[in-house]
């Protein structure tokens, strides 16, 4: 089969197709939930998952924050036990 326009058209077609795919990828939700297919059970709630422009936190920092919080509460308990009364 002869393609009208020859190889140039083919190249153009491919480029536009690539562009389209790229566009789709950029717009595509980057997690199952935002795509509408909730996490573990497909019918659970849909809750934020994408990138947003808040201030970014490394996941390790979240864990450290959590552990620090737990320790501070424990220390409060210990201090109040030691001093024998609440603050």
């Amino acid at each position, binding site marked *: 089969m002869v393609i009208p326009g020859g190889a140039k058209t083919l190249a153009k077609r491919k480029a536009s197709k690539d562009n389209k795919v790229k566009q789709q990828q*950029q*717009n595509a*939700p*980057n*997690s199952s*939930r*935002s795509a*509408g297919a*909730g*996490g*573990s*059970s*497909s*019918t*659970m*709630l*849909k*809750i*934020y*998952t*994408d*990138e*947003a*422009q*808040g*201030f*970014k*936190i*490394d*996941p390790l920092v*979240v*864990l450290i*924050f*959590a*552990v620090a*919080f*737990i320790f501070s*509460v*424990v220390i*409060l*308990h210990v201090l*109040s036990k030691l001093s024998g009364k*609440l*603050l």
Partner: protein
Amino acid sequence: MSFRILELVTPFRPFLPEVLAPERKVPFNQRLMWTGVTLLIFLVMSEIPLYGITSSDSSDPLIWLRMMLASNRGTLMELGISPIVTSGMVFQLLQGTQLLSVDMDNKQDRELYQASQKLLAIILSIGQATVYVLTGMYGRPSDLGTGVCLLLVLQLVCAAIIVILMDELLQKGYGLGSGISLFMSTNICESIFWRCFAPTTVNRGRGSEFEGAILALVHLLLTKKDKRSALIEAFYRDNAPNMSQVFATAIVFCSVIYLQSLKIELPIKSTRQRGPYGLYPIRLFYTSNMPIMLQSALSSNLFIISQMLYSKFPSYLVVKLLGVWEPKRGSQQLAAVSGLSYYMQPPSNFTEALLDPIRTVLYVSFVLSACAFFSKTWIEVSGTSPRDVARQFKEQGLVIAGHRETSVYKELKKVIPTAAAFGGATIGALTVVSDMCGCLGSGSSILLAVTTIYGYHELAAKEGGFGKSVSSGFAELGS
């Protein structure tokens, strides 16, 4: 460009914390590790008591919601996941009813949507914490003093923010899936495990025995001379968890797993490229654990309202019709003894079900119909109705093999609503059965835990985990 409600969150966005998304796909073992560590933190937080509380031995007004919200009384996890779930529900409802126009294909919109969800969750947690402290759940505010009140609110809000962040961490691809359902089912599993192996002792006049069912069995078998009566006692004691309940739980567990695997597979093929047939599975539990969640949320809310009204105005006829509450034998906890709430409350064991057959019939029919109804409604709300699925098929260029392109909708309409309604009713029936057999923990909580864990297992299998043995996986982690 027109002004929209969603734009209101824009000024707050720089202040909302946000977990960094992973640069590339996190390997399965690492995701398992993240999930484990997060869970551990969650569990530790749900065991540490709040600093500054003086009393927490009154009747718990929220006992019906504890299971759903993964919360623990008097601990850092007092709020549990309620802020996230509430804000998620609100936004999904707003979006479902088209009050909030969000274009989910637009990245900008999605970002705004989730930022506002998070903002609402944080605001809700502050509000809830304040209400909890000021209504005197931990002792009268005047006794506590301003400093301790503030400290209590601060602790609760901090814990809530940590949970929000951990859920986000798990969802962004570090973990295996949704944090909310994970926390919920962990809490449930924990309580079931505790009832099996609790080392605490109860005394009912014949020496102390262990509260945990399995521990008690071993203890009674070892210490009693008459082995037969020891066995009977371990199986049928009524003041603490017993072995027959353990077996009932195991049976319910297995039957749920079996029922999970029932599905209809529609053969589908692509119209765009030639190739082999694929299968589109429609499970019996099409809406998974959603109907049971909605049903228990509905009845718990009704119980709470009725209890509150009864404690304030016990003499009104309407209030009495809604529910009359009296403390259960041997505990502070209230239970309904007549009125609408009584008929919506599960019978606590088989004898109770037999003693009041009218109540049993009403309760069973209520649960079955409510679950079927919620299931059918949920497919419309969540965008999994036959019409939506047919549209997805069309977008992806899929047709049901052996049918015309136009008849996809008709075929799906034959299967999906039936599956949803029947699946909802089945899940309701399972709840009723497990409540009447007196399983450890309520029927709905067991169902929730099993369906969530099964979902996780499926996900893990799809991700290619479990291919290698777990031990070799851990070896890799170490290296």
